[in-house]
């Protein structure tokens, strides 16, 4: 029997929370319960979380299970086009999708900084709820800790996701063959440029919006095509890093063309101003797919019918020229190797 509940005259609501996050809200005591019961449980709204157990007990599946985890420490935690909340949901969901999995469940672990305005926390948790709903996942378990002022930048969120992979699906860089097409689902570098512009206080005619988005619809639309070899989302390290990783893992050469890649004008502008390379800036709502040549056109056609990948394009091919390295054909016609970045181009973008 819960005596506290008996003592209450009415259930607590979000308005009853203190204006800013307090240390005691991470103590596991009364204030922690209040936070969970007024904020997380109603917004994430599912039977697993409502049970308020130490664990969520999930139904079994006959399919193979995919598991992924990711920590989010982006600064600023609210940026044009999104915030750390939808980023934390989409990021992990997309990682599951890149293996061909249907995302099903998430857990979310919060590290909150003392003094974080409750209004902002509520906004972020609401964004997570909306993103989870859109992605078709339930946030079934979580944790909240509060650290002293100055020990974190507002809040950090770690999400872990579970998804299920249909029988027979075996996407992996090992499937890549010379002659395959390299497709990217839209413009690259938007998220990195958005965070960067915001952090440096640079504004062009229009604000650069982060592209944070769930790739579920894109992946589900093309998942049945047998010619898909593998997918990757070019997050940290950007497109250049992704094609380099795929080249290394496949032992082949992914060669992309500078002239085929779509980069937004404002993104190019900020790269010019700050001397950055858009190929190394993160996207948070795009994917790279390596597809058998005979199915590239069909894959592209289907992708272009989905909102999140309406600008999909073939940006290069797989060759066996320089095994294990990615390369770039520059617009003046030279070819150079695309290496991994030696040093962080931009810290803390996700």
């Amino acid at each position, binding site marked *: 029997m819960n005596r506290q509940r008996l003592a209450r005259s009415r259930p607590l609501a979000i308005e009853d929370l203190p204006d800013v996050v307090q240390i005691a809200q991470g103590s596991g005591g009364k204030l922690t319960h209040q936070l969970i019961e007024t904020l997380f449980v109603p917004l994430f709204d599912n039977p697993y979380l409502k049970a308020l157990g130490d664990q969520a007990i999930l139904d079994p599946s006959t399919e193979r299970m995919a598991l992924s985890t990711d920590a989010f420490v982006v600064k600023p935690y609210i940026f044009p086009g999104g915030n750390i909340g939808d980023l934390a949901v989409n990021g992990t969901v997309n990682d599951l999708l890149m293996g061909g999995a249907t995302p099903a469940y998430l857990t979310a672990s919060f590290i909150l900084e003392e003094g974080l305005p409750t209004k902002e926390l509520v906004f972020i948790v609401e964004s997570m709820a909306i993103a989870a709903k859109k992605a078709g996942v339930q946030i079934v378990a979580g944790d909240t800790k509060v650290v002293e002022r100055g020990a974190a930048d507002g809040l950090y969120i770690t999400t872990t996701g579970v998804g299920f992979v249909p029988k027979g699906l075996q996407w992996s860089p090992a499937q890549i063959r010379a002659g395959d097409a390299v497709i990217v689902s839209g413009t690259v570098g938007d998220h990195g440029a958005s965070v960067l512009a915001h952090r440096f206080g640079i504004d062009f005619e229009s604000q650069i919006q982060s592209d944070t988005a769930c790739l579920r619809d894109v992946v589900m639309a093309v998942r049945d095509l047998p010619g898909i070899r593998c997918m990757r989302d070019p997050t940290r390290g950007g497109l250049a890093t992704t094609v380099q990783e795929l080249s290394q893992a496949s032992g082949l050469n992914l060669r992309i063309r500078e002239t085929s890649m779509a980069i937004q004008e404002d993104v190019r502008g900020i790269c010019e101003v700050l001397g950055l390379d858009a190929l190394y800036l993160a996207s948070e709502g795009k994917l790279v797919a390596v597809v058998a040549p005979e199915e590239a056109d069909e894959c592209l056609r289907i992708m272009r019918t989905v909102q999140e990948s309406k600008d999909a394009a073939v940006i290069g091919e797989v060759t066996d020229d*320089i095994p294990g390295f990615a390369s770039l054909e*520059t*617009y*003046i016609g*030279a070819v*150079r190797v695309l*290496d991994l970045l*030696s040093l962080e181009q931009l810290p803390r973008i996700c």
Partner: protein
Amino acid sequence: MKFVDEYRDPAAARYLLEQIHKLCDAPQRIMEICGGHTHSIVRSGMEQVLPEAIKFVHGPGCPVCVTPIAKIDQAIALARRPRTIIATYGDMVRVPGSSSSLLQEKAKGAHVKIVYSSLDAVRLAVENPDSEVVFFAVGFETTIPANGFSVIRAKQLGLTNFSMLSNHVLVPPVIRAVLDDPGVRIDAFLGPGHVSTIVGSQDYEFIPREYHRPVVISGFEPNDILESLFMILKQRREGRCEVEVQYSRAVTKYGNPRAQDVVKEVFSPVEQEWRGIGAIAESGLSLRKELRAFDAYYKFHDWMPLPRPEEPCECICGEITRGVKEPRECASFGTGCTPERPLGACMVSSEGTCAAYYRYQHVTIQTGGARD
């Protein structure tokens, strides 16, 4: 921001390359002075598509690379001083001094802040009245006016906790020094675009007049550089030798007089030590005598007598900065010296020749993809 696209037209690049191939009938060693040009040349893979006869010689135009070790050691000494904040531009924190770098000092607890504008350094001083803010300011003509303005602002605000450790260097004297060096052979120059927006094109007229080498002041897009090469070859073909401006969207003959006034108000010319090159008369700027209250070198003179700086013996940054040697001629390139663990300054800044080669060509050479 549409302005970059028209300089990235593949058809224009093809046309310019055709013209260059037609005009180029003899070996040409062309020095690009500015590190921004080096970066663009290497990044676009330009040497692969140019005639073999055209050879770029990378010049001393990276401000981080030419800052002497002694100056880095001074900044490190001040970083160790209690209640002192060192404010500087990003790349400077990674440049190795004799035994440490500002980044290593930061990890040990020193207050080192990266600023993006000189006025950010002044703001730090306003916000931290109990600390001394030392603005470790480096740069060529492009950045000197803005750096100088920080001193004017600090003076207006009556700040007593702001000072500048200055390493400001000038392009024309170092070009003269390079041309006087018998080890360096150069047929023509790509003039620095950004520097010229401040000083104008007139500052380079001594090069054709006294040394009989053409100069074309170039923009930074690969097509800008291709067009500048075309203009150099055309001067040769037509028997002309003069200063021309390809980067006419930004550069005028007389530059930016307001910026030049700030420089005159704050700085006076001094003999300057260039890393790898040596001392060159009147090639640097230090704060004027009447502004010594803001000059960290004088303000903290007690902290300054430092042991003789030690250059890492295996590093050939000096010869690379002078255009005498190439990164791949260095035994440490890519092995003992990488952007993650730089031995010399050329591997630090993105404008540094070694860093540009490492990032864009190193693997190409290993895998046999590039021409040379």
